[in-house]
C-alpha cells in the first residue's frame, strides 16, 4: 500500500509539470500585462516595475526561475496586491473556499445518494419519475443560472437571506452552498439510482432475500455499499466540479475565497496569483483523486494495491 502510494505521488509530478508549463505560457499569450492599468503608467516606471519582477527577461528564463521557485514551495509575490505574496493570498482565501466547498460536497453526497436510493427503491413509481425529472433539470441548469435565481427569489424578493457577502454563518453560507451543490445533487442522485437498481438485481441480493433477511437489512447490509461505490469514484471529478463552480459562485456572492482571487487575478493579469491558484487547484485535484482511490480500495476487498 505504501509502495503504491509513493508510486502514485511520483506519477503526479509530470502531470503537475505539464499543468504548470501550459498555464505559464497560456497566460503570457493573453493580451495585456500586469501593469497595463486603465491609466497608463509612465514608460520608465513601468520598465522599472517589469525589471523588479524580472518580466524584462526572456520568457524561458522566467519559466525556469519560476519552476525553481515552485520547488521551494514559493508561489512568488502578487503583481497586483503589492504587499502580499501569493502564498499569503491563498492561505487567506483557502479556509473560506474550503468551508464552502466541503459543505457543498457533503450536501451533494448526502442528498444525492438519499434521493437516488429512494428513487431506486420506488422504481417506476410517481416518486421515482418526479425525482429523476427534477434531477434531469438540475443537471442541465448550470451554477451561474441557479445562483442568480436563488438570489432573486430568497434575497431580493423574499428578503430572507443576504444576497452576498461573507461570514461563517448559516445565513451567508446557505445560498452559495445550495447553488454550488445543486447540479451535483442531481448528478449523484442519477448515479446512485442506476447503481442501486443494478445491485438489487444481482445474485447476492437474491441470496440475502433467500436467507430471510428483512428487506431493510437486505438494503442496508448488502446493497448500500456496492451501490455507493460508483458514487465514491465520482468524488474525484466532483471535487474538480466544486472548484470550477466555486470560481463562479464566489464571484456572484462576493465571497473572498480562492475562486475570487482567481477571477480577480485573471482580470488584473496578475500572473503569479493566477499561476498560484492553478497549481493549488491542480494539487488539490490530484490529492483528492488519490484519496478516492484509497477509499475505494478500502471498501472493495477485491482491489488491492501492491
Amino acid at each position, binding site marked *: 500500500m505504501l509502495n503504491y502510494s509513493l508510486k502514485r505521488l511520483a506519477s503526479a509530478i509530470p502531470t503537475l509539470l505539464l499543468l504548470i508549463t501550459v498555464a505559464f505560457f497560456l497566460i503570457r499569450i493573453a493580451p495585456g500585462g500586469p501593469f497595463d492599468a486603465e491609466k497608463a503608467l509612465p514608460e520608465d516606471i513601468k520598465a522599472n516595475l517589469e525589471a523588479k519582477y524580472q518580466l524584462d527577461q526572456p520568457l524561458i528564463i522566467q519559466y525556469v526561475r519560476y519552476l525553481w521557485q515552485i520547488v521551494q514551495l514559493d508561489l512568488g509575490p502578487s503583481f497586483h496586491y503589492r504587499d502580499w505574496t501569493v502564498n499569503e493570498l491563498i492561505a487567506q482565501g483557502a479556509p473560506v473556499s474550503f468551508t464552502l466547498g466541503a459543505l457543498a460536497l457533503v450536501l451533494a453526497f448526502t442528498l444525492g445518494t438519499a434521493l437516488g436510493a429512494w428513487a431506486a427503491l420506488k*422504481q417506476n413509481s410517481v416518486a421515482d419519475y418526479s425525482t429523476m425529472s427534477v434531477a434531469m433539470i438540475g443537471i442541465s441548469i448550470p451554477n451561474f443560472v441557479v445562483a442568480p435565481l436563488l438570489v432573486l427569489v430568497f434575497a431580493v424578493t423574499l428578503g430572507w437571506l443576504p444576497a452576498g457577502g461573507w461570514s461563517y454563518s448559516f445565513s451567508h453560507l446557505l445560498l452559495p452552498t445550495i447553488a454550488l451543490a445543486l447540479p451535483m445533487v442531481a448528478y449523484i442522485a442519477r448515479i446512485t439510482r442506476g447503481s442501486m437498481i443494478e445491485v438489487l438485481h*444481482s*445474485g*447476492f441480493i*437474491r*441470496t*440475502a*432475500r*433467500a*436467507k*430471510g*433477511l*428483512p*428487506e431493510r*437489512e437486505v438494503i442496508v*447490509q*448488502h446493497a448500500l*455499499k*456496492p451501490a455507493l461505490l460508483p458514487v465514491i469514484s465520482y468524488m474525484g471529478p466532483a471535487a474538480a466540479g466544486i472548484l470550477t463552480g466555486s470560481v463562479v459562485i464566489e464571484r456572484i456572492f462576493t465571497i473572498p475565497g480562492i475562486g475570487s482571487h482567481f477571477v480577480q487575478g485573471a482580470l488584473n493579469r496578475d500572473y503569479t496569483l493566477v499561476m498560484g491558484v492553478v497549481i493549488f487547484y491542480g494539487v488539490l485535484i490530484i490529492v483528492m483523486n488519490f484519496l478516492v482511490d484509497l477509499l475505494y480500495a478500502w*471498501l*472493495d*476487498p*477485491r482491489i488491492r494495491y501492491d
Partner: protein
Amino acid sequence: MALLEVRDLVVAFDTPEGEVHAVNGLSFDLEPGQTLGVVGESGSGKTQTAMAMMGLLAENGRASGSVRFRGQELLGMSTQELSRIRGSSISMIFQDPISSLNPYMTIGDQLIEVLTHHRNLKRKAARQRAEEMLHQVQISDPAQRMRQFPHELSGGMCQRVMIAMGLLCQPDILIADEPTTALDVTVQSQINLLMDELSEQSSTAIMLITHDLGVIAGLCNQVLVMYAGELMEFADIDPLFSSPAHPYTEGLLKSVPRLDQIDSGILSAIPGNPPDLLSLPVGCPFRARCSYAFDQCSAHPSLRETEPDRWTRCHLDTLPKPTENKAD
C-alpha cells in the same frame, strides 16, 4: 398432509412481447426427508417454480395457485412473514455460487447473519456454529475461511459455503437449483457426493433442480420431469430410468452422456426446440418434437396415474419398446 403441497401453480411474466407462461398448472408434494429431482431442458420452468415457492419472482412475475408449507399458504404471504420461513425452514442455493455470495462481505459475516437473524444467537455462538457447519461441508480450516472474501475461494468452495449457509438452521427443505452446473466436472462430482452424504445424515427434504438426469441418478428417490412449465412424468428413480413412460423422458434419457455410449456415438439431444412460452400450443406441448405423435395429441393430455405413485401426461398407454439394441 405433506410437508409441502404445490397445487396448480401458474407463473406468468409480463413482458413487452406479451405474457410469458413459465409454469402452467404444476402440482406436486414434498414429504419430510424426500429427495426429489426436478428435470427438464433449460427454459422448462424449473427455476421459476422454485422462485415462486420462495416468493422471489422478478417484479414482472405473478404466481397463482397454491403453495402450502406445513399447511400454511406461501403465495401472497407478506415479505415480512416469508422472511421468517426463508433461510430457516426453506433454504435455496443457486446455480452460480460465486455471484451468489456478497463480494464485499467476509464468508463469516454472511454465515453469521443467518443465525443472528433466525436463531437470535449472539455473534460468538453464531460464529462457532458457522465454523461447525463449514467443517460439515468439508471445508478445511473453517476459522481461516470465515475471514476470507468470496473472490479468495474457488467456485466449488463457494458452493460448499452456500450449502453450509442453506443448512445452518436445519431447514425442512433445501432447494438446490443446478448447484453444480457452473462448476468443473471433477468439482461437480465432489459437490454431488457431499449433497448425497448430507441428505443421508439429515432429515432435510431436498429438491434438486437440474437439466441433467445423470446428476439425479445418484441423489434422488423421485423424479419430476418438467416441460413447458408442466409436469410430464413423475416416478421413482429406478422405474423412470429403466422404463420411462413419457416420450420426453425417454428423449432426456437418451441424451444423458454415459461412458458406454460416448464412444459409440449414440448420444443424441432431442431434436427441435421447446415451444414458445408467449403462445403455447393447444394440444400436447411436446407434440412438435415427439416421434410418437398421433391424431389424439392435438388435444391436451391430462395427467394419468399408470401405477401407484407413477404419473404421466401422454395419450399413449405405453411407450413402444425400442427396436434397436441398446449398448447395455
